[in-house]
C-alpha cells in the first residue's frame, strides 16, 4: 500500500483547494492519520473509495472523540495558551478487494458547542450508518447528509451527549461500603459530611 504521505500528496494534487494534514501518531503503533478538510471530505471519501490503487471499499470503524479545551503551558516561557476544544470523528478504512489498510481519516469540528456539523460518510460507506448515529448520540456531532440521523443508544428526548468529557451523570448515587475514586467524589456530593456516627448495627 502507498504510504500516507503519498496518499496525501495524491489527494492534494486531486483537490488543490483542500487542506489535508498528516496527523502523526507518536505511539509505538505508528498508525498515522489524515486530517481532512470538512468541506472536501465527501469528495475525498468518494475518491478514496473508487481509486483504482487504493480501493478503500470498507470502512471498518467510525468513532467520535471529545477533546475539551485545555491549557498548554509552554515549558520554556511558562506562558499559558488555551487550546480550543473540538470534537473529532475518526474513520478506519480498509480495502477488502486489495486487502490492505488501514487508512485513518479524521474530521474535526470547529468547536464543541454550536459548530458541530461534519459531512456524513454514510452515502459512501453504508457501514458508517449506525456508527455515525452513535457518534451523534454520544458526542453530539451532527452529520450532514446522513439519511436517518437519530439517537441510537439513548432514548429519543434525551438531552445530553453522555460520552463527552464534561457530561455529568444524574445523581442516583447509592450508598456503598467502600467508595473510592470517582465514587467517593459522588458520595461527597450526595451525602454531606457529619461528625462520626456510631457503627450501624449489623443485622
Amino acid at each position, binding site marked *: 500500500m502507498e504510504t500516507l504521505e503519498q496518499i496525501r500528496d495524491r489527494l492534494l494534487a486531486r483537490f488543490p483547494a483542500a487542506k489535508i494534514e498528516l496527523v502523526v501518531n507518536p505511539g509505538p503503533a505508528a498508525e498515522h492519520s489524515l486530517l481532512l478538510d470538512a468541506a472536501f471530505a465527501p469528495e475525498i471519501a468518494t475518491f478514496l473509495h473508487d481509486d483504482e490503487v487504493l480501493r478503500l471499499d470498507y470502512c471498518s470503524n467510525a468513532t467520535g472523540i471529545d477533546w475539551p479545551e485545555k491549557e498548554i503551558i509552554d515549558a520554556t516561557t511558562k506562558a499559558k495558551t488555551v487550546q480550543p476544544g473540538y470534537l473529532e470523528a475518526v474513520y478506519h478504512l480498509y480495502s477488502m478487494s486489495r486487502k490492505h489498510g488501514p487508512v485513518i481519516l479524521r474530521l474535526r469540528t470547529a468547536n464543541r458547542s454550536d459548530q458541530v456539523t461534519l459531512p456524513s460518510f454514510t452515502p459512501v460507506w453504508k457501514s458508517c450508518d449506525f456508527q455515525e448515529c452513535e457518534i451523534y448520540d454520544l458526542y453530539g456531532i451532527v452529520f450532514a447528509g446522513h439519511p436517518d440521523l437519530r439517537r441510537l443508544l439513548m432514548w429519543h428526548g434525551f*438531552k445530553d451527549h453522555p460520552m463527552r468529557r464534561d457530561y455529568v*451523570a444524574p445523581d*442516583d448515587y447509592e450508598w456503598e461500603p467502600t467508595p473510592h475514586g470517582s465514587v467517593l467524589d459522588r458520595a461527597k456530593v450526595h451525602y454531606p459530611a457529619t461528625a462520626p456516627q456510631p457503627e450501624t448495627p449489623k443485622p
Partner: protein
Amino acid sequence: MSDPTRPEPVERAATPAPTPFPAAGNISDADREDLRQHGILLTSLEELYGWGRSNSIWPLQFGLACCAIEMIAAATARFDIARFGAEIFRPSPRQADLMIVSGTVTKKMAPLVVRLWNQMPEPKYCIAMGACAISGGPFKQGYNVLKGIDRLIPVDIYIPGCPPRPEALLHGLTELQAKIRGERVSGPQAARHLRADQPSEFPIPDYGEHDLEPPSNPALFKPPVLPRKT
C-alpha cells in the same frame, strides 16, 4: 448483597428455621402436622394451593444480558430446570408466573421491564438474577444503568453472581418454591397478591431529558440515608 443497610432481603428464608419461611407463618411444621391430623381443612387446602403454585412456576421468556445465557443453560440437559416444572418459558407475560430479571437493566429498558411486570397476572414473583439486576453490578457507574431493579418493582429472590451459575438459579427457584409454599391465604402473613394494601401494578417511569422520571419508585425503594463519616 453485602450491603448491610438494605431492607431485609426476603431470601433469608434460606436459613434453617422451624418453618420454611418464618415471616409467613408462626406455626411450626410439627404444629401443622398436628393440625392436619386433627383435620384442619384450611391448612390442607392452603398447602395444596401452595404446592400447586410452587410446582408450576412458568418463567417469562425474557433475557436481558449475559445472565440470560445462563438462564437458558439452566434449561438445558445438564441443569434441567424442567425437573421443577419450570421449563415452560412463556413468551407472553400474560401466562408467566415468574419474571427472571436476567441481566443489566438499563434506563432505556427499565420502563419496559415495569410494563412487563404490570402485564403479568397475579400471583407473580420476581427473581433478580445477577449483580446487575440486584444493584447495577459492574456497570453500576454507567449513566444508562439502573442500579437495581428493586428500585422499580418488588423482588422476591436475589441471586448474586456475575453471572450466577445455573445451579444458583436452580437454588433461587427452590427458595422461591419454599417461599410460595410458606405463604398464607389470609391473615397478617397473607401472600402479597392476596393483600389489598399491596399494589399489583407499579408506576412506569417516563423517559426524561436527563434521567428516568422518577428514577425510582419512592413507595418501594427507600435507600438508607447514611451520613458520611468524616
